[in-house]
């Protein structure tokens, strides 16, 4: 005889058993999920919510709709800083993206003093950012006491304005960042290069391929995913640049090096306009989300290929 109660209870028990089986998974996940909620998703949604309000003591007192966004887009500094931030990204790709790859390949090919060179390259990475920026500040001093101008004077040339020349400000700031950041990128590329199957190099060498062809046909395809990851990371990091222009130029001359994040910081802390600063941050967030989405699309395509 058919036991109806058993039939009805079976799926319930199944679900119950499944939950019981997965309790450990949920418990293990909980700290990470809570941490994400508390330190990431919470603040992000809060910032988005607050950017539509008028704030008093950082507490929303009035819903103002898109007013803060209107203020951001009608602020002439918005487009100046947006352009500057893209210029920072552009110059960081021109000046800072390729050298670590070349250095890593060179280090990988080196037979002697590899560890010593690796150490030398990595030293700037451990220098605190502010200290590094100050070192460069003294290098770029426009007077005769600036280190670079001392060299120019030694060779009979007159002083150069360096960071005070608006055409050079952003590329020079990027030079300082490249000096500091190259070491860590080199180490990552080097680690990846050391996992390349040596048989491939030997095979291409037997077939008569030179260094350049070996690089194009073995090294580069191996580094492809890592390069893309670093490219996107660099775009995201450089787009949010703040510390270096703040220390080296305070955004000058005439806002030529004012980045979007430095502008946002000054709005919030110097000008006491946190609402506008929050709205500006949401705009930056959206831009970076688009870049990140693009990264995922390209990454998936590369993996499928």
């Amino acid at each position, binding site marked *: 005889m058919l036991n109806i109660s058993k039939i009805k209870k079976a799926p319930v028990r199944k679900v119950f058993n499944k939950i019981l089986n997965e309790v450990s998974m949920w418990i293990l*996940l909980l700290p990470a999920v809570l941490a994400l909620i508390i330190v990431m998703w919470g603040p992000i949604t809060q910032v988005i919510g607050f950017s539509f309000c008028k704030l008093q*003591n950082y507490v929303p007192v009035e819903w103002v709709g898109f007013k803060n966004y209107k203020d951001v887009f009608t602020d002439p500094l918005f487009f100046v800083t947006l352009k500057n931030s893209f210029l920072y990204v552009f110059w960081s790709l021109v000046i800072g993206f390729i050298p670590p790859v070349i250095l890593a390949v060179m280090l990988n090919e080196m037979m002697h003093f590899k560890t010593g060179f690796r150490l030398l390259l990595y030293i700037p990475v451990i220098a605190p950012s502010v200290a590094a920026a100050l070192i460069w500040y003294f290098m770029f001093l426009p007077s005769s006491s600036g280190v670079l101008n001392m060299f120019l004077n030694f060779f009979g040339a007159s002083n150069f304005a360096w960071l005070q020349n608006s055409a050079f400000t952003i590329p020079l700031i990027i030079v300082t960042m490249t000096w500091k950041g190259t070491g860590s990128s080199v180490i990552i590329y080097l680690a990846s290069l050391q996992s390349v199957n040596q048989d491939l190099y030997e095979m291409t060498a037997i077939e008569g391929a030179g260094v350049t062809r070996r690089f194009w046909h073995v090294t580069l395809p191996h580094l492809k995913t890592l390069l893309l990851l670093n490219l996107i990371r660099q775009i995201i990091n450089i787009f949010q640049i703040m510390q270096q222009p703040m220390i080296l130029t305070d955004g000058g001359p005439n806002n030529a090096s004012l980045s979007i994040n430095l502008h946002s910081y000054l709005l919030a802390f110097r000008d006491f306009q946190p609402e506008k600063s929050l709205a500006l941050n949401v705009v930056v967030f959206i831009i970076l989300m688009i870049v990140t989405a693009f990264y995922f699309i390209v990454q998936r395509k590369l993996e499928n290929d």
Partner: protein
Amino acid sequence: MKKRTLLAVVSLLSVAALTFGGCMPQKTNQATDVTKDGKIRVSVGNWPPDNDTARIETFNKYIEKMNEKYPEIEIVKDTWSYDVSTFLPKAASGSLPIVFQTYFTECNKIIDAKYAKDITKQVQEWGYDKKINPQLLKLVQRDEKIYGIPSSAYVLGLACNVALYKEAGLVDSEGIPLFPETYDEMLQNAITIKEKTGKAGFFLPTTNNMGGWQFVAIARGFGAEFVEQKDGKWKAIFNSPECAEALQFIKDLKWKYNVLQDDVLCSVDEFYKLYGNNQVAMGIMQGALHSLPVRLYNMKHENASMTSMVGGKAGRYALLGGTVNIISPNATDAQVDGAIKWLEITGVTPEVTEQTEESWKIKFEEQKASNRIIYDFDFNIWDNEDWKTRRREVIKPYVNVNEKLFDRYTDYSSIELRSEPEANAQDLYAILDSALQTVLTEKDADVEKVLAQAAENFQKNYLDKIN
């Protein structure tokens, strides 16, 4: 899929809870306004750090006097002092000290952001509203309400480095600098100093709004005005020939005469360094700040001197500045009263009693022990001549500089004192900073175009929003 949905729901709920939690009114420190034994707790900002023993001793003496006269109040030390980068988080979290000092230039934005308590009632009860210098009272008032009590005031003047003046031969038989009276004379002195010593003749900051602030004082001497209110609407009026002439003067200092400091993208802090190390001859500052190059860069007292702001074709104008005490918006009425009592003990009071003189002496003793320049630099914050006379008498035995090096600075008879432009002063300074940076870094910059753009920017982005 179900797992993902569940995770998403849990996350969203948590985020929502956090978000709404964040929107809840925050608890203030009202609950801690009274101690267990019933004393009124008043936290005092700008407390000296542990390593500043001379000032610590002074403040401890104030506490002793406070305990004697007002035993019902307990003073709580808070070493936080006003700083642009830390103020907002401190204020937003409700943890500002009950009384703290800031500058007059910061007052407007603190009042606008509602981080200053309306203390009109208490100020009236103490009778200070009738005793504070009206020019200064205006700076801490909004809609007839009072939001602060000035603790010191100063007038901008021209600091002159005596060592460089001497080296350039620009001193009289007593070794006193031949102080300039006009911008033309100042330029001539700067040129001579540059030629004879190779050091910069004049310093102008261009960042942190300081350049704009000083430029306003300079340009007024050329006849420039910055804002005006017509039919209740504010208008930017500095796109004028007078202001262009002033900006051209600054541009010429750099490109025509080459008498400015080399680094033209710097804040006023750089001035203290260069001035203290005899690397620049002149710069605009307030007299009391001479303690900075002396303390930080061991500047010799005899190398410091000051005169009043020089004049242009429209006259001699100087800006008023100073420090003001603000009360936290979370303070109770009893705490506001306690804060005013504390200020009284430290000498911030219009009534000169024996105790006030004693407080001044404590401060001058401390300055003497720290090898600071002691001179009566301050502008009288009270509308009371007796206060100034008594203070001069008390400070006299402590003065440690040749008074002839400073007496022109404190003689206000030949200058007109002006306060800041009435609308969005800080925003105006920021825009003028950029204009100054442009003309000092671009040799071919068109002064009139730079000003026209700055005025349009200021009108469109700031004044139109308050009209």
